[in-house]
């Protein structure tokens, strides 16, 4: 059995729950995964308990205070055992996975959605095809969230290892997001608007629903390109963000191949569009042929009732 190591997915100095899914993926690849938690204080590793790992290492370094690719790869390389390494597939984790793999002179396979023995399947061509590869030795594998069921049980004791990495980049300033709203790349529910919304002002209807159900607000490229008030950071699709939420609600979005590429792997898709022939309906679990003016007020009041 290949030794497997999981690098914990971190969010605001805490172990993100999706880390238990990575442990599950690592168990599929080999036995007895070791879970390594990059942290500045060993207490931050407490959340790694009972996530199914055979043992837990808190890799403690000031270098983990904010992300610097070179420093993270150096600091992790020093404490991560040899073997196949599993990481998350957030943009930062994929970056770190590639750097760590190169540091060890091994290959990296990104965005795994299925693992069978040494064969790993990932979406390619923006999800228009699936590619299965065989890894002929140790590799670094990043794993998409919402694919593997979380592992449970296992170790709860944490061994602390100090490590270091030289931070080369320096942050001049942090710029908070203009809105307090969740980013589409972090949300489990997303409601997105397209050019069918008619005007950027009408996105307030989407925001109101988002506030009711704890969703992020996204947009199609057509909306971002047409209206300056809709920033690129909201764009879901091939030249925007690839998202994988539990629920994706597309409003006034026709479903261009560009957009589908960024959201087709969402677990459930709701489409609201006045054009019954819009391609988005072929990908929807629930499709409503209606104008947003007719559908959104009903949707909002029903959701308010359900969410209590």
């Amino acid at each position, binding site marked *: 059995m290949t030794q497997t190591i999981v690098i914990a997915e971190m969010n605001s100095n805490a172990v993100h729950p999706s880390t238990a899914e990575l442990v599950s993926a690592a168990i599929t690849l080999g036995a007895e995964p070791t879970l390594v938690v990059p942290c500045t204080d060993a207490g931050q590793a407490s959340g790694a308990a009972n996530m199914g790992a055979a043992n837990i290492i808190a890799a403690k370094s000031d270098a983990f205070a904010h992300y610097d690719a070179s420093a993270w790869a150096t600091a992790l390389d020093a404490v991560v055992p040899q073997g196949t390494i599993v990481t998350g597939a957030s943009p930062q984790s994929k970056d770190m996975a*590639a750097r760590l793999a190169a540091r060890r002179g091994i*290959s990296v396979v990104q965005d795994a959605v299925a693992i069978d023995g040494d064969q790993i399947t990932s979406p390619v061509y923006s999800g228009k095809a699936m*590619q299965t590869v065989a890894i002929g030795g140790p590799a670094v594998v990043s794993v998409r969230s919402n694919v593997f069921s979380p592992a449970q049980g296992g170790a709860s004791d944490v061994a602390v290892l100090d490590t270091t990495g030289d931070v080369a*980049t320096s942050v001049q300033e942090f710029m908070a997001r203009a809105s307090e709203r969740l980013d589409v790349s972090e949300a489990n529910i997303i409601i997105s608007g397209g050019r069918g919304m008619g005007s950027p002002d009408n996105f307030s209807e989407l925001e109101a629903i988002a506030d009711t159900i704890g969703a992020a607000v996204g947009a199609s490229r057509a909306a971002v390109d047409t209206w300056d008030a809709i920033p690129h950071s909201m764009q879901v699709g091939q030249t925007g963000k690839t998202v994988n939420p539990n629920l994706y609600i597309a409003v006034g979005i026709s479903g261009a191949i560009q957009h589908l590429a960024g959201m087709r792997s969402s677990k459930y898709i709701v489409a609201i569009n006045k054009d019954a022939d819009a391609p988005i309906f072929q990908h929807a679990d629930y499709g409503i042929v*209606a104008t947003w003016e007719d559908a959104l007020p009903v949707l909002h009041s029903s959701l308010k009732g359900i969410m209590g």
Partner: protein
Amino acid sequence: MPNIVVLVKQVPDTNAKIVVNGGRVDLSSVKMVMSPYDEFAVETALKHKEAAGGEVTALTVGGNGAEKILKDAKAIGVDHIVRVDAEGEMDSNALQSVLANAVAELGGEVVYCGKSAADTGAGSTGPGLAERMGWTSVSNIIGASFDGGVSVVMPSGGGNAKVSVPLPAVISCDKGDLKVRKPNVKGIMQAKRASVDVRSIEVPASTVSVVNHALPPAKPAGKSYEGGAAAAEVAQLLRDEANVL
């Protein structure tokens, strides 16, 4: 004055339909273009040159067919175009090794690339190349400025951070608010006449090999409704059937 290298890759047009034949993606009838994020990398590289001087070299790895995107880069203003002559499947380790040798041969001091290629979507090349060179790397940048050194804007925590990047470095580019320049007639004529510097670099063996390609499983037909009033039923089903609320 920096020696700037920008990595470009030929990929299927992102609007193309992808066909699988005999367990492999069949690109024989697909139009090939420069990967969209690489266009942002070329634009950023040209802006760097405009601010700091130096020269920009566009570099690709591939067969003869890959020279079209080098000409496209030449038409919008890069100084030199280089192709490493190598075809066939390469894993990340093999490709990055080839690129590291090519960048070293070219004497590059800063490398720009797209945040990921539109075919694999992996995004491994930039950070992997930087590690091999022992360089700094920043990824997914949405802006860059060149006022006394290189600063980039990139996502960080819940917002964005402005980060200064010491060179040498590999900088991988997201879209941001960048407008990509279009070629003019003079540029197109120059690109036609330009010759591609073809290099030969040894490709190490790959340990990761492609087993097969397949189309994604078809999604079963969903439920469809007419009229906005149906949104009430859909909302209830999201709770009771889909269990996502």
